[in-house]
């Protein structure tokens, strides 16, 4: 059972952060939008600003964008042909420092594909104001620590560890996806996932990593955001959910999988306890995509990753409606750059001095 948490901790766009940016000369509306950008994406489109503020395309918008650019707060990026549009990368370190996130990676340059992915996430957050949204690792950890009264072991949060021994670094919520937190007496939490590929390989890993946390959350939704070009992939994503949550692993399967994965990694292992299970049989039995995803997480977390999918809790949550998986299509064109989603690339072109921002 989760405890009610102060509304101050339920959203990354907190009044204190907004106040910090207002002290730099932004209006409340501008500051609120900028905090969204800093926390969730680092980049934005003019239409997102206009939609958020309710402004039409005109002088006020132009002035705001011009100020960001001329003050060096943001860099306009013109990908591809002129007039296709521009996106703005807010990279100014003092802005991030002002909201207590000096080392936020949104400040760093990234590929266009990654920028477009972040624009999509920003759209998803701005579109649903029923929830408070958590964007940073620290905000998520603080919220869940409070909600679970620190009862949930660290291992149960989605995490990735690097290095070993004293030099080991652990990143929690490594996918850096926004989490929606109920604001008005509701109990449902929303875990966003952005589909960047037609094949849900990474989504399967995401589900396995999230399983332990979901089991502890009272009510939850996994909301899969599908760019228009991946709309038809929804069927595969549904299968991935069913594989992960509706088909719990049995203790025997966990034993067999652990044995097979250790063999596969090249460890010297005794023959399986099951006399009928040899490596060839295991490779055939556990060759499906769901087991590939398990292998990736097992590699990082060991056998505990497999136990996250044992038992019928998640299946029961889904049956009772406490757990829910939903799909949302992202309707925009994103400067016609959606083919870059999920692919590496480089930032193409910066705005030339003197370019008219109003055409952005």
């Amino acid at each position, binding site marked *: 059972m989760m405890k009610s948490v102060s509304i101050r901790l339920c959203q990354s766009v907190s009044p204190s952060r907004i106040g910090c940016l207002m002290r730099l000369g932004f209006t409340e509306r501008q500051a609120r939008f900028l905090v969204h950008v800093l926390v969730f994406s680092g980049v934005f489109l003019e*239409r997102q600003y206009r939609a958020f503020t309710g402004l039409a395309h005109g002088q006020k918008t132009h002035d705001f964008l011009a100020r960001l650019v001329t003050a060096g707060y943001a860099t306009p990026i013109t990908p591809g042909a002129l007039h296709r549009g521009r996106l703005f990368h807010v990279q100014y370190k003092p802005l991030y420092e002002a909201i207590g996130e000096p080392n936020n990676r949104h400040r760093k340059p990234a590929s266009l594909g990654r920028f477009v992915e972040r624009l999509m996430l920003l*759209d998803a957050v701005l579109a649903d104001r029923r929830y408070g949204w958590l964007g940073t690792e620290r905000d998520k950890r603080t919220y869940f620590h409070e909600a679970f009264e620190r009862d949930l072991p660290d291992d149960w949060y989605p995490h990735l560890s690097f290095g070993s021994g004293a030099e080991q670094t652990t990143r929690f919520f490594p996918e850096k996806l926004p989490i929606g937190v109920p604001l008005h007496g509701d109990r449902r939490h929303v875990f966003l996932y952005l589909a960047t*590929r037609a094949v849900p390989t990474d989504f399967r890993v995401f589900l396995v990593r999230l399983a332990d946390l979901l089991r502890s959350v009272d009510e939850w939704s996994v909301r899969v955001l599908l760019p228009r070009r991946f*709309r038809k992939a929804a069927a595969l994503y549904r299968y991935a959910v069913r594989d992960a949550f509706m088909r719990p692993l049995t203790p025997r399967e966990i034993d067999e999988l652990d044995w097979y994965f250790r063999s596969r990694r090249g460890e010297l292992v005794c023959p399986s306890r099951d006399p009928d299970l040899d490596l060839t049989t295991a490779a055939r039995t556990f*060759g*499906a995509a769901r087991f590939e995803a398990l292998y990736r997480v097992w590699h990082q977390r060991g056998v505990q990753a497999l136990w996250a999918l044992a038992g019928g809790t998640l299946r029961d949550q889904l*049956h009772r409606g406490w757990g829910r*998986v939903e799909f949302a299509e992202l309707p925009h064109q994103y400067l016609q750059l959606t083919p870059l989603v999920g692919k590496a690339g480089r930032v193409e072109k910066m705005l030339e001095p003197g370019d008219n921002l109003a055409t952005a």
Partner: protein
Amino acid sequence: MLDFDPRDRDEDVRDIEMPWVALRRDSGLDREEVDPRDPDDARDRDRDARERDVDPRDAFIDGLELPRGLEREIVVDGDHRYELNGDDSRSLATVGAFRVVPERDFRELRDEPSDLREPDLRHLRDEGLVRFVSLDGRDRAVTLTERGHHLLEAHRRDRSDEREQTFYAGVSRPRELSHDAQLYGAFLREEERLREQGADVRRVVLEQELKREYQEWLQEHNRGRADSDGRPDRDPREIEEWARDHDLPYFDESVHFPDFRIEYALDGRDRHQDVEIVTDHYRGAHAAGVARAGFKCYGRGGRGGGRGFDPRVAEELFR
């Protein structure tokens, strides 16, 4: 330890809803860019889109994790890397399901002139996943290479599902190539008819798969026995029962197999339709046997082009 495998509980796997939701319901600001259709109609839109976008090949990629979109993506299989989009995936799986498919059947599916359609199959050929074989010296058909077959097998979503689509590579019976190449055309017509009734096609089972299952059952008692003479020990009554269990006709002391079976779901129930290709060579007792078996019969012609169904053959069949 649990005393059952939760994966056996099919109803659990099927009955949760994963709906579409509209993102823009609460923002209320970005009016000029909102999809003009009512966001609350997302489900209807989904259904409409499905109806509009039905591709008979979809059934064959249902159990595969391969690209489905318009853009080509990199697909890795061992040391090989391929670039495939949704159309490539569907074509590849369809060829694998029917073993051999005339090139013209893919062309007509898209209602596009051949010069527009051809590059896609050429792309699969250039990737080494399919090869062309000549049909009667006039048309050509396409069949999977071993690499194509391996790619499909390696990208199965769940290899433990025995009811998944079987895929085949290469031409099995060169003498029967012309006959086998008609299966897909017949499937297209039957699939269209079933779809109009609201059916959802799950997979296709070719005759040789049905026969293999039959042979495995026949030889079950001989397996592993050094002293076996290879003759099955099943009596006619057992065989008739096996045929009844598999919904196959049994008469003249033998089980009769269709050229292929379409398995589909309709009104929440699993059903199937057996289909037989009849040619000019079907005469006399053979034709009468096909008619008695009650299979859905298709002849040459129709969608697949070529000569129309010879009415004399029909006369033989239904006399």
